[in-house]
């Protein structure tokens, strides 16, 4: 049971990881927490649904097109709606994110409002039985895809000039500008990457769960909890925090009480903020006076 719960927790945690990572990517470069990010996750899943189910496109090209579409949506969101309000109060960013998220959700409700939509299973292989342990095709697909994406993501950060640019902007936007980085354009791309990563999360979870316009809300909360646990601004912290959260939900649900599954994320946020506010891998905030 322990191993079974761990695998299931890692599978859920992998989705949370993509959501938390995409939130962190945006937060690191812009210091904006995208409160509408759950709806980008939802939008990615719905674009994929339209392409695969309604237009009959095969899953992989449809998923790729969905990710590109969400990348462009994130980029346009930054260019058209975030840039113009820069210089205003910081809460304006949060409100803009929430408003756009609800607009996207509203559009989905207008189109699909009262239906809970099934998404065909992508990786329909029979489960693997190892003794009492059952490894499902969905778990293999989700964990495998997320692992590959994370390897690529962190390799780009560690081994390329793009990674150095990310680090430079994170440390000081003004400094980055001084060495010739177009920070505005960089931020637009960051929003695009964040939206695209969120879309991958939506695309992966849609075949496992069902699709409806409110699907993103719970993932947003899980993403926040993972960010908090891993440490705000820490990319690898977001991933590790998400995996720990996914596993913790399963253990709490099976060994203590199944009602705990739904509140584990809230408990994590409360406990971490009280005990270790900078999370497992975050930097301690230092205020100069």
């Amino acid at each position, binding site marked *: *049971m322990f191993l*079974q*719960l761990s695998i*299931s927790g890692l*599978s*859920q945690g992998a*989705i949370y990881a993509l959501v938390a990572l995409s939130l962190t990517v945006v937060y690191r470069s812009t210091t904006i927490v995208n409160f509408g990010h759950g709806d980008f996750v939802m939008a990615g899943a719905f674009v994929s649904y339209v392409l695969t189910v309604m237009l009959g496109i095969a899953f992989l090209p449809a998923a790729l097109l969905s990710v590109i579409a969400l990348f462009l949506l994130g980029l346009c969101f930054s260019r058209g709606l975030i840039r113009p309000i820069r210089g205003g109060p910081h809460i304006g960013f949060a409100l803009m994110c929430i408003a756009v998220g609800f607009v996207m959700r509203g559009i989905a*409700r207008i189109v699909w*409002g*009262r*239906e*809970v939509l*099934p998404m*065909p*299973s992508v990786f329909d292989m029979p*489960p693997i039985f190892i003794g009492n342990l*059952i490894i*499902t095709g*969905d778990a293999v697909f989700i964990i495998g895809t997320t692992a590959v994406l994370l390897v690529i993501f962190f390799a780009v950060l560690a081994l390329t000039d793009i990674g150095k640019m990310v680090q430079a902007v994170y440390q000081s936007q003004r400094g980055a500008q001084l060495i010739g980085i177009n920070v505005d354009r960089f931020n637009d791309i960051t929003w695009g990457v964040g939206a695209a990563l969120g879309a991958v999360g939506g695309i992966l*979870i849609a075949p*496992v*769960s*069902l699709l*409806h*316009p*409110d*699907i993103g*809300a*719970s993932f947003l909360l899980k993403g926040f909890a993972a960010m908090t646990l891993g440490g705000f601004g820490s990319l690898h912290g977001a991933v590790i925090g998400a995996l720990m959260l996914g596993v913790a*939900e*399963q*253990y*709490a*649900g*099976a060994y203590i*009480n*199944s*009602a705990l*599954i*739904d509140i584990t994320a809230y408990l994590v946020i409360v406990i971490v903020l009280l005990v270790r506010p900078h999370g497992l891998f975050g930097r301690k905030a230092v205020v100069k006076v």
Partner: protein
Amino acid sequence: MKQTLTLLTGLLLIAMPATAEETTGLTEDMIKIGVMAPFSGNAASYSKAEIGLMAYYDKINDEGGVNGRKLVAVQEDTACDPAKGLAAAKKLIFQDEVFMLHGNSCSGVALAIRPVIEEAGLPWVIAHAASDSISDPLAANIFHGLPTGSANGRAMAQFVLSRPDTKRVAIIEHSNDWAHSYSDPARAYLKEQGIEPVADQTMERGQTDATAQILTLREAKPDFIIAALYEAETAIFLRDLKKYGMSDIPVMGTAGTDLENTLIRVGDLETVKNYFVIHSYIDSLNGDKLKPWGDMITKYYPDEQLSTFSFASLGSAVAVVEALKNAGRDLTRSGFIAEMEKIDNLDTGILSDPMTFTHDDHQGVKGSAVAGFVDGEPTVLRAWGERY
């Protein structure tokens, strides 16, 4: 002095009970009826029930209306959210000034709005929300026009125990009033029969994985599982049951899900072959006896995809029209309520059990059939292996 009088008048208005007048929402040629439903949100598919009753109004209107008046539905969205539901109810009562209320899916919303409606005094015929607490304790103006949770919960447990050699029963449910309205009466019936659930599991709305619950259930080795879950979570639970090789265990679901749409959502018959649901109608979704009702709904709402929810409110709609007719042209709220209380053993032509209201009992339907797949076809059943 003038300010003091204004203040006193204001205080008097606030202190007065917010009761609705006897005849607001009535004109010479129409009766305004407030219809609340979750037209948005992740429980929005339940609003199909209210689409059904509005189609029935349209049919009655095409036939000339009730005593010369057309039935006009004023829709408000609750999003299955108590706060939004409360705002919707207040708007319908105090702003739109409807004659009566009909509808409302989502028991949590119905429970939240009950005090406001009870105080306002206008009639409310509940068409879809099943929690007993909405109509019990009795409120003079509130009627339950479908089997309540206790009727359904007992029917669920009775069906479960009608399967030979069923001794170990597990329960999985949401932690809300809606789920408890099914599971508590089911537990009570099981207890009467000397059976304690071998496992009690919670699966909250929005969860996308049921592994933890299913592994706990596997250890409990149930003969039958009672699942008080909404549609999306039911599909996820059944899919995960199959994943973990437990799809041979029969699962008894509530009236909150139906066989046909659950089959569409999970994608294959193997996953739902042992899934049973409370089914309060005389026939299955595609059966001959439901066809005229389905045709009526699609006539007025051509884009509507029919599910069993589409028929959920029709029994109550038949009762409402019956009482409005009997109340005559000089319609008042108290007259309508008196006529509702005279409804006795009404065969609605759609519900599996008749409807009876009395002055002391406003829960009109006391039983329900069950539906399950027999030879791959949705079939209405009285008990395990016994067709309706």
